[in-house]
């Protein structure tokens, strides 16, 4: 053995090589050995391997001993050792025993390599593969056999000894578009070396469907495919999340599309604006996402609303509040739409707002409805406040929630007083039942409103006639919230109507009386005239002087009667004419006293008592002459028709009724049988007693006179007890001081 030459050959070897003798002492070694394993030592020749490399692990020491003893060789592609100080080393070796010329074992040749870096990378890669669920594969084009890494097998859920081929691998892809797609991609790769990167579903050996990312690359040489390899990644979870997200997004898109909600995003850093297609539609713009900026939006906003819009955006950017703004948008065609924009901000790690994402929708309809509602409300309250009709909003319990001035005016209450009251309190008791009955029908939904002519009680007690229209106001479910009552005061009409009815009655009564009067006059005139003509005829034929004298006396009587009748007629006509005279304030007491004086002779004759119970200051509105005549007539009647059985007593008193002054003339005379004479008592030429003075004209005139003053006369009488005549005068102001 040419030792020197070998030694120097070894010295320059590019690998770490060492030759040891049987005692494991260095015979020769390469410089690389010295650099890689024994840095800092000058010469190793003759030194023991284990002294030079004291950290040599026990396992390797055993291998060295074994190889030396048996003359065997030991090859290791890489083994990891962890030293007591925690450091890690991967070693790769080849150990052979060498023999001398005689065949004796001379020592060991050791080829040692520190592969720590490589091995560590491999290990990390394998780990990464596992963590990332990325497997590798490669096709052996000579055998069409496929090489799969462990992860690839795991993803396919096949046993470790599974041997795949291209066909079987393709068949793992889900039938349909997935399998077709991978077949197409692989075919392309074979043909022209196009790499692929796709996401497809495959069905594992256990039947599970999973999403994988398949990546393939091709190495070509001289236009021929020489190698196909790639990676294979389980992206099922990621894909599911992604698909779920996509689904949600689609659903949201669908919802926003349907609801007309536009979605926008404004990046404050890049100053870019993103709109979905609905946003463009909302602003009446062509879909043009490439030509879009913050200004596009700003320009669409009504000039009057821009400032407020900018303030809202500024508030959102400063983080004061999320964006919520209402504004008007002006379409290119000039249409104005009401919009609402809401947005949330996104902040960077420093808390600075970098993005606003939001929605925008058209609220024109809502706005218009609101405006119409407001207009309607305004006009209702305007009408309510200023209506000439009394109006009230009445709660379910009948209390007034709101009343207008007209209602207050017609009922005499102030607004404050009335809103403390209920309709029950101001309704006439006789009309209450009817009102409540109708109200119940409304509450029960039988009718939406009702109309009723009813009476209210004014604050000062008098009756107010009204036409009530009550309408229920309901919520969307038909529940009655309150009522709107409208009250038209028809008191003036009712009063006029009553007055008219009275006038009509008086008129027809007067007509009736006039007709009677005409017949009575004609009757009486005829009786006198017929008497006159008869007596004249007798007189012409009569020869006897005595009888002629007798006839002449009768003739005078007849002519006096005619005269008297004509005077009565004149008197009645005077009443009608006198009705046009003005009524004056007349002191009743004075009038009565005056009449008493005029009748004093008759009173004395009859030995009558005259009782006057009249306040000294009582005045009535009357035509003085009529009042004199009436009083004189009634008092003299009382004296004329006194009962011979008792001393005459005439009592005159006054009484104040609600709207009249009643003056009673009560006597204890003969009385009149009213069951027989009720209808005739105030008739012309009606007499009821055997009294020579009775002409049947007094009460007729009296009735005409009192009616001419808008009053009336009534009588109560019992035969043998006495009569009471009652005069009713209109009551304006009772006493004058």
């Amino acid at each position, binding site marked *: 053995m040419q030792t020197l030459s070998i030694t120097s050959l070894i010295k320059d070897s590019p690998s770490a090589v060492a030759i040891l003798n049987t005692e494991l002492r260095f015979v020769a070694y390469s410089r690389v050995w010295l650099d890689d394993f024994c840095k800092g030592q000058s010469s190793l020749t003759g030194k023991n391997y284990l002294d030079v490399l004291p950290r040599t692990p026990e396992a390797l020491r055993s291998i060295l001993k074994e190889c030396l003893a048996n003359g065997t060789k030991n090859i290791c592609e890489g083994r990891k050792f962890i030293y007591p100080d925690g450091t890690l080393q991967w070693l790769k070796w080849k150990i052979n025993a060498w023999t001398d010329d005689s065949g004796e074992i001379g020592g060991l040749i050791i080829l040692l390599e520190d592969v720590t870096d490589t091995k560590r990378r491999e290990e990390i890669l394998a780990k990464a593969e596992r963590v990332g669920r990325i497997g590798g594969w490669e096709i052996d084009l000579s055998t069409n056999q496929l090489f799969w890494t462990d992860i690839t097998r795991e993803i396919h859920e096949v046993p470790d000894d599974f041997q795949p081929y291209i066909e079987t691998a393709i068949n793992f892809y889900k039938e349909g578009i997935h399998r077709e797609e991978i077949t197409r991609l692989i075919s392309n790769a074979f043909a022209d070396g196009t790499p692929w990167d796709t996401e497809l579903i495959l069905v594992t050996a256990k039947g599970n469907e999973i999403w994988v990312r398949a990546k393939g690359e091709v190495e070509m040489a001289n236009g021929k495919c020489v190698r196909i390899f790639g990676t294979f990644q389980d992206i099922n979870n990621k894909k599911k999340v992604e698909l779920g997200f996509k689904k949600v997004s689609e659903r949201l898109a669908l919802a926003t599309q349907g609801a007309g909600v536009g979605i926008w995003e404004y990046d404050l850093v890049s100053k870019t604006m993103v709109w979905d297609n609905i946003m463009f539609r909302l602003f009446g713009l062509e879909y043009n996402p490439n030509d879009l900026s913050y200004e596009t939006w700003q320009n669409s906003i009504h000039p009057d609303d821009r400032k407020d819009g900018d303030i809202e955006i500024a508030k959102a950017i400063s983080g004061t509040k999320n964006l919520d703004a209402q504004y008007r948008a002006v379409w290119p065609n000039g249409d104005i739409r009401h919009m609402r924009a809401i947005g949330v901000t996104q902040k960077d790690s420093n808390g600075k707002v970098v993005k606003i994402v939001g929605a925008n929708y058209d609220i024109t309809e809502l706005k218009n409805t609101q405006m119409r509602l407001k207009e309607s409300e305004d006009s209702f309250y305007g009408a309510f406040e200023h209506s000439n009709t009394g109006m009230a909003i009445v709660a379910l319990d009948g209390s007034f929630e709101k009343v207008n001035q007209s209602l207050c005016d017609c009922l005499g209450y102030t607004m404050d007083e009335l809103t403390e009251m209920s309709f029950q309190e101001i309704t006439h008791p006789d009309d209450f039942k009817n009102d409540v009955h109708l109200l119940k029908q409304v509450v029960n939904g039988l009718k939406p409103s009702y109309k009723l002519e009813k009476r209210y009680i004014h604050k000062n007690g008098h009756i107010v006639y009204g036409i009530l229209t009550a309408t229920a106001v309901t919520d969307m479910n038909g529940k009655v919230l309150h009522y709107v009552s409208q009250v038209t005061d028809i008191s003036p009409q009712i009063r006029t109507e009553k007055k008219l009815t009275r006038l009509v009655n008086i008129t027809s009564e007067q007509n009736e009386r006039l007709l009677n009067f005409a017949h009575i006059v004609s009757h009486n005139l005829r009786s006198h005239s017929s*008497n006159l003509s*008869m007596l004249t005829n007798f007189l012409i034929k009569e020869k006897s002087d005595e009888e002629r004298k007798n006839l002449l006396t009768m003739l005078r009587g007849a002519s006096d009667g005619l005269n008297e009748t004509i005077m009565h007629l004149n008197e009645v006509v005077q009443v009608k004419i006198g009705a046009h005279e003005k009524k004056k304030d007349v002191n009743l007491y004075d009038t009565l006293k005056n009449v008493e004086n005029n009748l004093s002779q008759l009173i004395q004759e009859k030995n009558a008592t005259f009782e006057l119970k009249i306040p000294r200051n009582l005045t009535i509105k009357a035509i003085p002459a009529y009042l004199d005549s009436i009083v004189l007539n009634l008092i003299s009647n009382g004296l004329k028709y006194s009962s011979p059985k008792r001393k005459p007593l005439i009592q005159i008193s006054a009484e104040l009724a609600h709207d009249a002054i009643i003056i009673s003339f009560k006597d204890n005379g003969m009385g009149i049988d009213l069951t027989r004479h009720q209808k005739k008592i105030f008739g012309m030429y009606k007499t009821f007693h055997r009294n020579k003075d009775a002409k049947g004209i007094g009460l007729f005139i009296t009735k005409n006179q009192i009616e001419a003053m808008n009053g009336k006369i009534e009588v109560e009488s019992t035969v043998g007890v006495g009569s009471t005549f009652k005069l009713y005068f209109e009551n304006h102001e009772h006493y004058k001081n």
Partner: protein
Amino acid sequence: MNITKIRSVCIIDDDPIFIYGTKRIMKEVDFSDEIIVYNNGQDAIEGLRQITNDGKELPSVIFLDLNMPIMNGWEFLDHFTEMPNNNQEDILIYIISSSVDPRDIARIQEYDIVNNYILKPITIEDLHKILKNTGGIN
């Protein structure tokens, strides 16, 4: 003329001149032997009732005025129809009035017992007609 006079006649009227005149004309035509006069309905009812109570016959003809005090002609008629009498034949009642009121004339039609209506003043011709009507009987 051959006319049978009436046994007894009754005038109910409050007008003394009318009574005088009627009596005088009755004498001229020899109308009746007996003339009974009442001044109002009340007197007439009382007087006639007395005659019946005495068992005598009532006058066969009654002249009745309508407008009278105390009890007028209408009321008299109402009472008279209720009153019993001893007469063999119907009593003829003539309404004698100055009234030309159509309502009065219509009302007269309602009374069966009223024979006719004579407008004042009463004439000789009126009495002759009455005598003709009653002549067959008396």
